[in-house]
């Protein structure tokens, strides 16, 4: 809804567009800023502890870097399907957008599945959060990231349902695809750093 008020000193006014950036986008970026601080605090503490304690090489060699690398590939690919969904949605190819959204959801679930395999193997080998500081950080950081992945999957799945039903394709709702994408790519960026920090260092 817009109220056009034209005066000599003011240009046409539309409610809620003072900066020209959509409100949802400003909101989601502020949210991501606070997330940077959460992960930043955690990663900072981890890096410093690890340097201080001689690298924990004996603990860190037990993580499965092959599965970690595959998961990186999965998540990076899901970022691609997400941006292709947005691109398709913006150009009116709604069916294609829905398909890419579904692919993103499925890739997210694949990521969680592989992560679950890793966890269960590690726990079977006797590595739990209480097995030393490296494992504490490993489980806390991947766990927190995993919760973010779950949140993203839920967000994307609701958009998929809306896309199939057609309720997503209105002027105001279509932007949600972009906001969900910003969040999903952020989760990807976090993993891009977590992977070398936890598996390769």
């Amino acid at each position, binding site marked *: *809804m*817009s*109220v056009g*008020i034209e*005066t000599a*000193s*003011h*240009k046409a*006014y539309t*409610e*809620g*567009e*003072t*900066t020209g*950036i959509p*409100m*949802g986008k*400003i*909101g989601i970026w*502020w*949210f991501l*800023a*606070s*997330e*940077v*601080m*959460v*992960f*930043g*605090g*955690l990663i*900072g*503490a981890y890096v410093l*502890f690890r340097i201080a*304690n001689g690298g924990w090489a004996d603990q860190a060699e037990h993580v499965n870097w092959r599965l970690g690398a595959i998961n990186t590939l999965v998540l990076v690919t899901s970022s691609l399907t997400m941006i292709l969904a947005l691109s398709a949605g913006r150009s009116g190819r709604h069916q294609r957008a829905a398909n890419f959204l579904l692919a993103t959801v499925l890739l997210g679930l694949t990521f969680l599945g592989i992560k679950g395999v890793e966890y269960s193997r590690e726990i079977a080998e006797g590595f*739990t*959060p*209480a097995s*030393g*500081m490296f494992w*504490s950080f490993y*489980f*806390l950081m991947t766990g*927190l990231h995993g919760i973010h992945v779950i949140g993203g999957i839920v967000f994307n799945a609701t958009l998929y349902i809306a896309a199939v039903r057609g309720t997503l394709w209105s002027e*105001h709702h279509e932007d*949600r695809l972009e*906001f969900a994408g910003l969040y999903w790519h952020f989760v990807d960026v976090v993993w891009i750093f977590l992977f070398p920090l936890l598996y390769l260092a």
Partner: protein
Amino acid sequence: METAAEQHHEAPAGFVRRYIFSTDHKVIAKQYMILSLTMALIGGFTAYLIRWQLAWPETDIPGWGPIGPDNYNAIITMHGTVMVFFVAMPFLLGAFGNYLIPLMIGARDMAFPRLNMMSFWTVFTASVVLTISMFVPGGPAAAGWTGYAPLSDNPIYTGVTWGQNLWILALALEFGSFLMGGINFLTTALNMRAPGMTLWRLPLVVWMELTAAVVFLLSVGPLIAGALMLLADRTLGTGFFRPDRGGDPLLWEHLFWFFGHPEVYVVALPGFGIMLEVMPVFARKPIFGYRTMVWSTIAAGLLSFIVWAHHMFVSGMDPRLATPFSVTTILISVPFALLVFSMIATVWGGSITLTTPMLFALGGLATFIIGGVTGIFLGSATTDIFLHGTYFVVAHFHYTLFPVTFFGGFAGLYYWYPKMFGRMMNETLGKIHFWFTFVFFNAIFIPLFAVGTHGSPRRIYELSSYTYLQPFQYLHVIATYATIGLFIGQLPFIVNFIGSMVRGKRAADNPWDANTLEWATTSPPPHENFEHIPVVYRDPYEYSVPGENEDWIPQTRPEPQIVYAAAD
């Protein structure tokens, strides 16, 4: 997310949608206000228990019974937690931020009304969780409001099990709530300003609520990480903060104070903002140095991120950090000194009417100066090492937080009550409330500066065993009598607050002849605030402009056409 611009224009008809799960920022603001005032009763009651115990440790406390050392620790923990997180924040940010930002910038509602509703119900859940934690087996959290590890980390020190876990959960919910709220504040003020409402025309309280929201948003993250680590230590057997498992308790202190110190400004800035709104109206003068005030606010917000370790001078942290943090701490007093001087210059030489809101604003300014000046003693490592952990610190932070929360908050409440409820409050009761609050607040905490400098340690449930403190016990007794006086002084407020809703004189739209946009609509404002979105032509504080017939010019009055009249 559904934004305000898409909403329907009628207020929802049902009671539940209208008053309980409402998305109207004005209703949500009132909900925050009621929540914070209710929680203040719990916080106040714990203050009474603490004061009685310190004055007369051998006696049973009327209305409670005897207090033991573990009980005492739990009570001070609850006092701090409730007052900072469930009174000051919901009152100053939740209630006033929500009420004022949309009205003052000329918007119909918040940017994300449903998110707004969710943030209220999240903080409500948080306060329920905290209240429940007071009654679980093992007792409530007893590690102080700062939750220092390993005290908070290992149950063998306090005997508290579920109480501490629920405390962490309550804080996590509270942080989540104010993160949502902060995102809403920032997006609203950036994007929903009325035509002509440039950033340099925003009222100062809006600037300060925004700075507070940014500071909160960017400082709380590391503590959320820390809280997860603490919870993992308590439940999963990790050892992030436990030296016996390779962890480091100092990390908790760093993560806590990286948030904890900015948090002081999160509370202080909105309180200052309210006082700055009230003062020009009742002095009939413009704000002295508006832009300097804005820059001071931003500077205070930035500097607040690099002062935190002044809470840790005696923690055993690396002593090389002490000097840099002393310097930044002294530095942050500069923007606050500017704010204080601007307030004084704003009222200086004005035609002052001592209404209740003005009294509270001036009282807040006067008491905050004491808090600020004593802060310099504590910000410098050399004096802090002597004073740390004494009642001097207790008196100091009560002299900063009480003025902004209660003097600032009450100033705002008396000032905007006509707008919120459409009725005037009783001035006589208000003035009685002010004088009781002002006199007894000072009577509580000035003695505590004295006992603190004499070395009385804080967080000790029974001081009579220290013989060197015996000569100063009478000061603790004075402080306790004053506490009871302070509580009696709140009765006129309760009567006034509730009574005026029914029996108060009907308020005019603009009873104080103020300029800002919230006075340009009806009292109380309609469902979407303005019949037409106002157009802004002026700065917010044009009072007593020379050559005008009235001593106020609302922001909505257009500039007159320039007429080139011949000069005499």
